[in-house]
């Protein structure tokens, strides 16, 4: 079978899928009696034409980059890590412990330590499912999803009974000391004359996420370990034949995946809320799956897909604020994008492949003059 050119695979397929999703969303919005063009304008205006909107878009995108990378690293070893949610929660716990119980002179030091703690906690949370998969063959999808619930229960117990300051209603830790507050985009870029990013949660963690993209790219395509992970993903028996230990590789891939998901805790706990709240992850672990699918498990793709989903989240918030479109419908719009770019990928790909194949055949029949 003829292959499509790479640009069509990487750009054309997602773009057409997106257009289809947008078209269907427009019909849905029409169906409830709102104007889809106005809705799109609101989303673009609120998410991309105000600097504070960008602050939110990039804040959400930061979460999705981490969880998207987590899913893709595991996926290169053909492991389906659905536990990003739990790993991120526990990562946030690591951040909270570092920020609350150690004195920090400056945010940069605290950021390094909190990142290490978040990655460590996330990795530890991924270790047990990884070990069970590698040694006992317990399916990683089942175990990681179960660990999400265990993480939620553990966090709930700790926040309600142990870490909550006395007399506070909200099940959350105390606010982290001021020295650990990360600089937001507002702190970094706003001036007296140009009050950019006002009040938005986007912060320095975004650059950490970009760094994580680079590291993951180098790891997967430029190191021996990355080669082993990919080899195992393509064929376990061939990898074994080449002397690669499946147990070791599965565990290491999952540890890296868990660490990446855990790093999301830095953004939500330290960057945004400046304390650990119960509901900090809010499904970003699951959105990471869609982001990885759409991004073809490549860091650049993950980065772009994360920005798109950040836009959808922030644009959705704008819709909720200024229209009467109910929030359930906003979820439907977001779900349509996931459906078309992730699940229905082949619906667009196969006709496109046929078109390209036909064109190539036609080109062969009529040789250039």
């Amino acid at each position: 079978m003829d292959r499509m050119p790479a640009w069509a695979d990487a750009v054309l397929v997602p773009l057409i899928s997106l257009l289809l999703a947008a078209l269907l969303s427009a019909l849905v919005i029409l169906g409830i009696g709102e104007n889809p063009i106005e809705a799109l304008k609101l989303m673009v205006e609120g998410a991309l034409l105000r600097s504070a909107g960008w602050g939110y878009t990039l804040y959400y995108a930061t979460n999705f980059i981490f969880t998207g990378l987590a899913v893709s690293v595991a996926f290169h070893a053909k492991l389906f890590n659905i536990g990003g949610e739990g790993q991120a929660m526990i990562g946030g716990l690591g951040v909270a412990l570092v920020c609350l119980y150690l004195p920090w002179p400056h945010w940069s030091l605290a950021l390094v330590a909190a990142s290490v703690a978040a990655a460590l906690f996330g990795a530890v949370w991924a270790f047990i499912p990884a070990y069970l998969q590698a040694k006992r063959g317990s399916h990683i999808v089942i175990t990681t999803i179960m660990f999400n619930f265990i993480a939620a229960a553990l966090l709930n117990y700790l926040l309600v009974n142990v870490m909550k300051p006395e007399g506070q209603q909200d099940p959350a830790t105390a606010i982290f000391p001021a020295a650990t507050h990360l600089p937001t985009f507002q702190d970094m870029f706003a001036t007296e004359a140009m009050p950019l990013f006002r009040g938005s949660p986007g912060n320095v963690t975004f650059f950490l996420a970009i760094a994580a993209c680079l590291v993951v790219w180098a790891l997967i395509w430029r190191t021996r370990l990355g080669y082993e992970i990919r080899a195992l993903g393509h064929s376990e028996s061939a990898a074994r034949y080449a002397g690669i230990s499946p147990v070791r590789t599965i565990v290491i891939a999952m540890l890296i995946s868990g660490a990446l998901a855990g790093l999301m805790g830095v953004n939500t706990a330290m960057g945004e809320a400046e304390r650990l709240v119960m509901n900090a992850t809010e499904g970003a672990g699951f959105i990471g799956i869609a982001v990885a699918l759409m991004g073809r498990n490549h860091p650049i793709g993950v980065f772009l897909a994360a920005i798109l989903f950040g836009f959808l989240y922030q644009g959705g918030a704008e819709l909720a604020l200024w229209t009467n479109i109910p929030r359930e419908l906003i979820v439907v719009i977001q779900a349509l994008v996931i459906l078309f770019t992730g699940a229905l990928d082949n619906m667009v790909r196969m006709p496109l492949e046929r078109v390209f194949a036909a064109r190539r055949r036609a080109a062969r029949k009529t040789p250039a003059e």
Partner: protein
Amino acid sequence: MTMMKSLLGATAALALTSGAALADPALIYDLGGKFDKSFNEAAFNGAERWAEETGGSYRDIELQSEAQREQALRRFAEAGFNPIITTGFSMSTPIDNVAGDYPDTKFVTIDGYVDPEEHPNVKSILFAEEQGSYLVGMLAAMASETNTVSFVGGMDIPLIRAFACGYAQGAKAVSDDIEVIANMTGTTPAAWNDPVKGSELTNAQISQGSDVVFAAAGGTGIGVLQTAADKDILSIGVDSNQNYLHPGQVLTSMLKRVDVATYDAMQAGADLETGVETLALEDNGVGYALDDNNRELITEEMQAAVDEARQKIIDGEIEVHDYRSDDSCPALSF
């Protein structure tokens, strides 16, 4: 170019509508959602009543994520809405962060607490849930034939434990040796909207002998009340008057007048008096519901006993322990 023009046009249109919205109130619902038949819906009902009576208009939003809390506050404040009313204790910290930036806007946090010294433009409205729960606990104990009553909470948080604790104290005030079974639906926010699990918990409690169940669980309570009606035991609703859901089978509802608080705040408008207000039995901020749907279930003796206790609580003769004051409960262990 035309793209840019139309976008600028949209911005201008938005700016215009924002201007027209000057001094309209805004309402922010917590994650449970506007139509939970309970807490948030009570706020919605209060707002609707205000809009109907005064012909005014208001804007509302159902939050979807934690990061939207501050965002919604800021965007509404920047657009000139006043006052901005919020439901749920989770809004108190975001208001604490935002209120200083918008000194001319009044914020209302229902169920939350913001230090009035620090932010003079914030009104905190709290409810003495333990008092209302105490009264329905008494009713439950008097209606029970098996001497076993039960409680289904939503998410396991101090607020819900305060409901359970007041309920257990009321039940034990009627009958010393009564058994009070308390279960929480879950540990994630999904626990506010899981009627299936609420139903399972109710079944489990029935098998342990309970014949009156009190649901303080938001949307989950729908499943609790449904199962209680199906299995022919009595149930107790929460926040809004839920007696109508299963007439003759809902013993009563623990009222928390979020609707009145919302209505009053909208009525006061920008001249809202700020500070901290605790709505207790004496303000009719909490209480129990008595209407045509449950009048036959509440005998005259029951009503007399509860009304007497109500007066004693108001007079200070009975002191109902609040779980939140010291994170412990004398009548129930969690």
